[in-house]
């Protein structure tokens, strides 16, 4: 009951939060120098043509009025049109956002598996070999740029070993992808039983997922390690040792207490990676949402950028809501 109340209260706040985010990002995007009308018509356009295009795009109005018009369209589910793709932004994003989400989710899962297991192993035996590896790894992962690692992986596994397909998109051009149901290629392949496409999709996912996983395992590992260390040095862990609780169980209880911090860093990474994985997307020609937004920023294509911000804001808000629910179920002190 408490939990439902808690979720209800959080959902109430989501609408004003989103409005604030849209307002701020609208103003920020509008302040980027560059006139879309000039860019759209090219260098040979006449001033009259530019003026009439500006008029038809609504760029003549004052900023508050432009914002108001945008909100009205938003309320009807119209996120505007991208002049680059000449398609509705909503359609573009519904196609690209799942691509990014699939990549980032699998990458993050890999990072969680690597980070938490190494972090736990090193907390379990502070002087063991795994603890040394973990220290070294944490340092390395924190200092490597992701696109560089992506290039190295491509060089080794594609150029040299030829174990994986070429880093061009999500699936082989020769393979017919399944009709989009969820937009997540792997899920759609599973749903339609299209094993050939699944194989190809997984092959294309392997390297970018590895890149994101290996890099982002660093912060998760560090957080797990330091939190576990702190908790294992805390009074209640010492007390459990004093009570003769086996080491394995002491570590398990410490992990339970460390989970909120670890979940926090994972959720922060998740929200960040939606846009932050853009360099990896570019290296693998992924065609994801991050790439789409960056193109928009570079070409004064306002609506894709706003649409992307809106999508990732909604996504982040739900991730944080989910995290709060996890806290709520882990820690009896919250919300009572």
């Amino acid at each position: 009951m408490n939990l439902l109340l808690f979720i209800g209260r959080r959902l109430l706040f989501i609408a004003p939060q989103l409005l604030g985010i849209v307002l701020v990002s609208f103003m920020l995007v509008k302040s980027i120098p560059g006139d879309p009308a000039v860019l759209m018509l090219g260098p040979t356009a006449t001033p009259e043509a530019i003026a009439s295009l500006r008029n038809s795009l609504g760029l003549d109005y004052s900023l508050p009025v432009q914002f108001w018009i945008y909100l009205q369209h938003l309320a009807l589910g119209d996120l505007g049109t991208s002049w680059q793709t000449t398609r509705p932004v909503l359609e573009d994003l519904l196609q690209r956002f799942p691509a990014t989400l699939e990549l980032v989710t699998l990458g993050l899962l890999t990072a969680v598996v690597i980070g938490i297991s190494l972090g736990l192993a090193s907390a379990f035996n502070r002087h063991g070999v795994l603890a040394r590896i973990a220290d070294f790894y944490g340092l390395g992962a924190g200092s490597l740029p992701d696109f560089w690692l992506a290039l190295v992986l491509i060089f080794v596994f594609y150029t040299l070993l030829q174990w994986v397909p070429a880093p061009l998109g999500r699936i082989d051009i020769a393979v017919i992808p399944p009709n989009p149901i969820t937009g997540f290629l792997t899920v759609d392949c599973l749903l339609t039983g299209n094993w050939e496409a699944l194989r190809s999709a997984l092959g294309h996912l392997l390297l970018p997922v590895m890149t994101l996983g290996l890099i982002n395992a660093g912060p998760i590992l560090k957080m797990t390690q330091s939190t576990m260390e702190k908790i294992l040095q805390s009074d209640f862990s010492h007390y459990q040792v004093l009570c003769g609780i086996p080491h394995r169980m002491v570590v398990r209880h410490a992990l339970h207490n460390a989970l909120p911090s670890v979940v926090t860093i994972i959720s922060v990474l998740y929200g960040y990676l939606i846009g932050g994985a853009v360099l990896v997307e570019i290296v693998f020609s992924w065609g994801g949402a991050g790439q789409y937004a960056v193109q928009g920023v570079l070409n004064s294509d306002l609506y894709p950028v706003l649409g992307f911000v809106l999508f990732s804001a909604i996504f982040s808000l739900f991730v944080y809501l989910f995290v709060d629910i996890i806290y709520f179920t882990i820690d009896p002190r919250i919300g009572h």
Partner: protein
Amino acid sequence: MHAPVAPGLLPGRAAALKITGLRVEFPTITGQSKVVVRDLDLAIGAGEIVGLVGESGAGKTTLTRSILNLTPTPGRIAAGSVCFGGLDLLRLPERDLQRMRGRDLSVVVPNPRGELNPLLTVGKQIVNIARVHLNLDGKAAQVVALDMLRAVQIPDPERRMKAYPHELSGGMAQRVVIAIALVCSPRFIISDDATSGLDVTVQAQILALLRQLVRERDSAMLFITRDVGIAAHFCDRVAVIYQGEIMELAPCEALFLSPRHPYTAMLLAAFSHNPRLRRGWSGPDTAPRQDGTQPGCVYAGRCPRAQPLCVGSKPVLGEVTPGHWARCYFPLETA
């Protein structure tokens, strides 16, 4: 250096736990090690409550942890043995010792709300101990835990089983910690300043309860406290510890009615309501701390009765009258 006979038991008692020549050192930056517990001998009989009194930093907590071979880092046990049930705890493999902690030897800790796992109900925490040490299944452990909560006189024990540590008062949490310490009916219990955070009435209740439970189960107990008054009411014998050495050890009444060591007299005077006594004996600890390398008595720098002999060589813990031991060349005749 040692007393010829280990500071003994009351006549006719078998030792439940016997500490011999225990020495605990902490490394310092200078490379020398600081001795925190120095050549300590102490035997505690079955069914006996021995008090250990001393000011902060005297080595009380280090001693408790060292008995369980859990010396706080970076300290290490340099010498000595702790005999318990025919075994030397300091030479036992960690795995065997872990099974004995909490089952045969247990500790009642102070500040229990910080020592309990905040994410588990107290019932679950007691059940865990019962399951680990008594090999009970979940249901049987549940019954044992509930009985134990009843034994420590927690009101409404069924409901408290489901309570989290933050939902308990200090006194209630202290009872839970006692329940955890006693659930396996250990033969030896260390109470480490267990009631220091509680107000006086609750303290009295908890102590009465603790004594009753110890007597019922014929367990031995080392009762560590800073409060001389509590020790006087609670213990059979009392040891006074100063800078890691036992200064005086005597049956409770003898120690409080006729202390033999000047330090004991000073401690008693500090707790006294008699202003003349307090002025005569107490004073701030201005003497430099010794690191154990000086030859004399560790208390010599602070002692109002110190003689050249006290600075030059270390007194042994000697039997002044039967059962009454003091580490002093010039023990007091009467207080």
